[in-house]
C-alpha cells in the first residue's frame, strides 16, 4: 500500500498530462469539426485497436518477432565485436574504422538492397533493426571492458592471473552496466529498424498496416498500429530495464 502510494505520488503528473492531452485531442476533434481521415478521435482509435477489419494478432506477431530478432542479433553481435575490440589491438585496428563506416551509412538507404538480396520476409527486417541497433552495444562493450582501474589490473598482474581470468572476473562484470545501458538504446532502435524494413518491403506487420492505410485513408487504423508499436517497444524497453535491475544491481542509479 505504501509502495502504491509512493508510486502514485511520483507518477500522478504523468497521468494528469496524459489525460489532459487525450481530453484536448478528443475535444478538438469533436467540436473543431476535424475530418476523420485527417485526425481520428482517440475513441475511434480505441475502437480500431480492438475491432475493425484489421487482423491485429498476425501483424503484431510478425512485427514483435522482427523486433525481438533484431534486438537479440544486435546484442549478440554487438557484444562479440566489443569483446574482440577490447581483447586485441590488431582486431580493434581492423574493426573500428570499418564499423564506424557502417554506422555512418544511412541504414534506411540500404533497405531496398535487402529487398533485392533477400526478398520479402521477416529476416531482412530483423537484419535492418539489428544494423541500426548494434553500434552502441559494440562501443559500450569495448569501453566497459577497458574502463577498469589500472590498480585493479596491477593486482591481477601481481598474482600472475591469465588474461582470460581478468576478462571473466574483472572486465566483463565491469562492462555489464555499460552493455545494459546500450541495450536500452538498442531496444528502441530495433523497433525503428523493423518498421523501416516493413515500409520498404513486407506483406505483414504493423509497418505494412500503416503503409496500406495511406491508400485507404483509414487513418484511425494507422494510429492504432502506432499504439501497438509503442506497446511492443515499451514492453521490450521495460524488459531491458528489469534485466539491468537483476543483473547489475550494483550499478543502480548510475545512468
Amino acid at each position, binding site marked *: 500500500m505504501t509502495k502504491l502510494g509512493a508510486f502514485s505520488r511520483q507518477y500522478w503528473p504523468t497521468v494528469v498530462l496524459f489525460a489532459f492531452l487525450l481530453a484536448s485531442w478528443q475535444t478538438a476533434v469533436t467540436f473543431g469539426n476535424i475530418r476523420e481521415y485527417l485526425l481520428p478521435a482517440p475513441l475511434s482509435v480505441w475502437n480500431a485497436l480492438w475491432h475493425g477489419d484489421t487482423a491485429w494478432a498476425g501483424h503484431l506477431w510478425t512485427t514483435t518477432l522482427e523486433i525481438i530478432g533484431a534486438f537479440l542479433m544486435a546484442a549478440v553481435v554487438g557484444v562479440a565485436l566489443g569483446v574482440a575490440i577490447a581483447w586485441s589491438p590488431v582486431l580493434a585496428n581492423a574493426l573500428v574504422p570499418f564499423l564506424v563506416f557502417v554506422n555512418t551509412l544511412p541504414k534506411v538507404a540500404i533497405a531496398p538492397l535487402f529487398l533485392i538480396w533477400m526478398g520479402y520476409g521477416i529476416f531482412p527486417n530483423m537484419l535492418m533493426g539489428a544494423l541500426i541497433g548494434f553500434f552502441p552495444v559494440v562501443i559500450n562493450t569495448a569501453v566497459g571492458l577497458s574502463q577498469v*582501474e589500472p*590498480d585493479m589490473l*596491477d*593486482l591481477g*598482474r*601481481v*598474482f600472475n592471473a591469465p588474461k582470460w581470468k581478468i576478462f571473466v*572476473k*574483472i572486465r566483463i562484470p565491469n562492462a555489464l552496466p555499460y552493455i545494459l545501458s546500450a541495450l536500452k538504446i538498442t531496444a528502441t532502435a530495433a523497433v525503428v529498424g523493423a518498421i523501416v524494413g516493413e515500409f520498404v518491403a513486407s506483406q505483414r506487420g504493423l509497418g505494412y498496416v500503416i503503409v496500406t492505410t495511406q491508400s485507404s485513408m483509414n487513418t484511425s487504423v494507422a494510429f492504432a498500429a502506432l499504439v501497438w508499436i509503442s506497446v511492443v517497444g515499451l514492453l521490450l524497453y521495460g524488459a531491458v530495464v528489469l534485466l539491468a535491475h537483476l543483473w*547489475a544491481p550494483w550499478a543502480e542509479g548510475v545512468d
Partner: protein
Amino acid sequence: MNKGLIDLHEVGMTYQAASGPVEALAGISASIGAGEFVSLVGPSGCGKSTLLRIVAGLRPATRGTITVAGRTVTQPIPDIGMVFQAPILLKWRSILENVLLPAELAGKDPAKLRPRAEQLLEMAGLAGFGPKLPRELSGGMQQRAALCRALLLDPPLLLMDEPFGALDAMTRDDMALELLRIWGEKDLAREARKTVLFVTHSIPEAVFLSDRVIVMSARPGRIAADLRIDLPRPRTVELRATEAFGRLNLELFRALTGKTGGGTTL
C-alpha cells in the same frame, strides 16, 4: 653489498614523455630488512609510488638492480600484498568475495581460504560485513577490507601506496593504530612481522608507523635522508604528544624541504 629482504642498487627510471625523456628516479640505493616497517615520504611527483611499483615488479626500472628475497626482480613478484590509495574493491562482489579475490587470481581454491578471510575480516573489525556490498561500507571500512585482501595469501611483504590518503584526518589516525595492531607490533616478534613499504605524504603518519623513514626529493627522485625512528613500540596515541615525536617530525620536515642539512643524520 647489504643483505636485506629488499635491496635496491643504483635504481633509476627514465620515461619518455611527449616533451622528451623525463628522469623520474635516480641513484636509489637502499636495503630494507625483513620485518622492518619503512615509510617513503616525499613531495608529489618524487617518484615514490613509482619506486613502490618497481619493487613489486609492476614497472621496469631503466637502471640498477632490485632484489627481493635474494631474487632479481624482472617481472611482477607473487609474494606481496598491495594496498592502494583507493580501496578498488569490485563493486559487484561482496566484501568476503573481494577479500578472496587474490586466491582466485592466483589459481588457488577460494573455499579453502574462506576461514582465513573471515578471520581477517574479524581482526579488521569487519565481522558480519562479509556479505555486504562495498558501497554499503564507509571509506575507512572499505580500506580495511582492502587490507584484508592484501593479507589473504599471507605475503611476507606488504606494499602500501598512500593507503590512508583519501580518508579524513580522524579515520586516518585510527587506521594507523589499526594497521600496527594487525601488523602485530604487540603480538609478534620482530622477525615474524611482515616487511612493510609504506608510501605517504604525511610526515607524522610516517613517524608514527615506521621503524625507518626514507625521505625523497623531487625530479629526479633521490634519497634525501634515511632516518631511523627509535620510538618505543607498541606505539600509542600519547606518543604523538611527546618531545621525541616532535623532534623527529621537525627533522624530517627539514630534510624534506632542504632547509638545513640536519636531516641527513642516520
